[in-house]
């Protein structure tokens, strides 16, 4: 292999990320080739320097105390000890009895949390001085803007002859996963449409449960592996009509 080919993988080698066989080949090459050896040494120096300079910011003790005070009162995750083993038979019975209701309760709690965060995203957009990052009423401008920013594609409806207008879109996050946040308007009411990958939310949502969240009207459904939310202070009929348009566009 000529040195230029070695060089393309030199950083991966120095990060220790090559398969072990290639690491051995690289080791022997770096030992025997003065040019690559010098290059590797220089890059190691660079890594060390960045590592040294990179750890330069430290928080004040007051700030650390403040954070600690806020979190230290929370309950522990208890390790599964021997004492638990002896009591496991009794616990198992209780668990079996309560399992169905517990799961339902947990799902509902998580589901409520998701709807609450969706409402937060909508309110955040309304309160923002820059509610959208791509400003356009043209779906052929807004949709391509998301390419490369989110790991999925979606379709937007044609709004001609409808009372809705598209204002634009922005990237957003829900449960630490990226998604699309589109903003529509109907008679001065702004409506958010949020699209995420269904699997990444890791929550089974009750689509019929929350007709309202913080007095906003909400509609949600899943299609083609994507989870859609439509939320706004417009009437329930408007929210439903916009949801219908989106469903037809995606069908």
């Amino acid at each position, binding site marked *: 292999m000529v040195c230029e080919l070695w060089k393309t993988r030199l950083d991966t080698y120095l990060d220790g990320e090559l398969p072990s066989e290639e690491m051995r080949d690289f080791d022997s090459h770096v030992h025997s080739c003065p040019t690559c050896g010098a290059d590797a040494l220089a890059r190691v120096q*660079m890594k060390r320097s960045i590592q040294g300079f990179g750890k330069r910011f430290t928080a004040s003790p007051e700030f650390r105390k403040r954070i600690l005070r806020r979190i230290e009162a929370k309950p522990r995750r208890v390790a599964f000890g021997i004492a638990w083993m002896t009591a496991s038979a009794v616990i198992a019975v209780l668990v079996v009895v309560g399992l169905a209701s517990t799961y339902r309760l947990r799902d509902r709690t998580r589901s409520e949390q998701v709807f609450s965060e969706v409402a937060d995203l909508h309110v955040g957009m309304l309160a923002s001085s820059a509610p959208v990052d791509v400003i356009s009423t043209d779906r052929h401008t807004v949709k391509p803007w998301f390419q490369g920013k989110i790991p999925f594609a979606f379709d937007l409806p044609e709004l001609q002859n409808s009372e809705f207008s598209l204002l634009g879109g922005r990237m*957003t996050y829900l449960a630490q996963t990226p998604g699309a946040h589109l903003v529509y308007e109907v008679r001065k009411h702004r409506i958010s449409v949020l699209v995420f990958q269904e699997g990444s939310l890791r929550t089974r949502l009750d689509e019929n449960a929350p007709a309202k969240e913080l007095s906003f009207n909400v509609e949600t459904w899943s299609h083609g592996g994507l989870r859609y939310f439509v939320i706004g202070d417009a009437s329930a009929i408007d929210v439903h009509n916009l949801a219908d348009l989106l469903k037809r566009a995606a069908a």
Partner: protein
Amino acid sequence: MTWLAVYHIDVSGVDPQSGSFEELAMPLFDPLYNFAHWLTRNRDEAEDLVQETYFKALRGFSSFQLGTNFRAWMYRILRNTFLTSCAGLKATATLPLGDPEEEEGPELAVEFVTPETILIDRSNSDLIEREINELPVHFREVLLLCEVEEMSYQEIAETLSVPIGTVMSRLSRARKRLRDGLRQRMTEGSRAEQTPVKNGMNYGL
């Protein structure tokens, strides 16, 4: 022992199998703050970012899956919180034109005086800080996670929610930009040193 073993330090993630949120999260406080400061470039904003990260993590701790990487989970929350903040939106809005994953040209051949040699001198810390700060946020974060936090490619991929190939590509481009930037500053520096003294007077520049 491999050639690398002389400097390689293994850093594994926090074991999430037991303990309270405090026990798991507080050892990450200093590195998270450092990372937040690099992202925001501002002490107050870094504190706000860390505070919000801890609150969000605490709220979502019950949904954290045991057996998964707690460190990557915390960094992901911090990074996503940053990206949706005003500072984050501003930072991502200044991304360069063109495909961010597109490879640039090959590295230049090894030079006698390289950008790396300038770094040996600790007095040049301002220079390296300036260069890292000038990197677009997508390059800055991947470089810091790899070099400062010593995360594996897999862990970085989990933190940034991108494929490993994207991590490698961004890392390569970040390093190239950093080297090119340092090389340019070195050239400018040597030109300045060679500038003749005006009217026989040295202005100390």
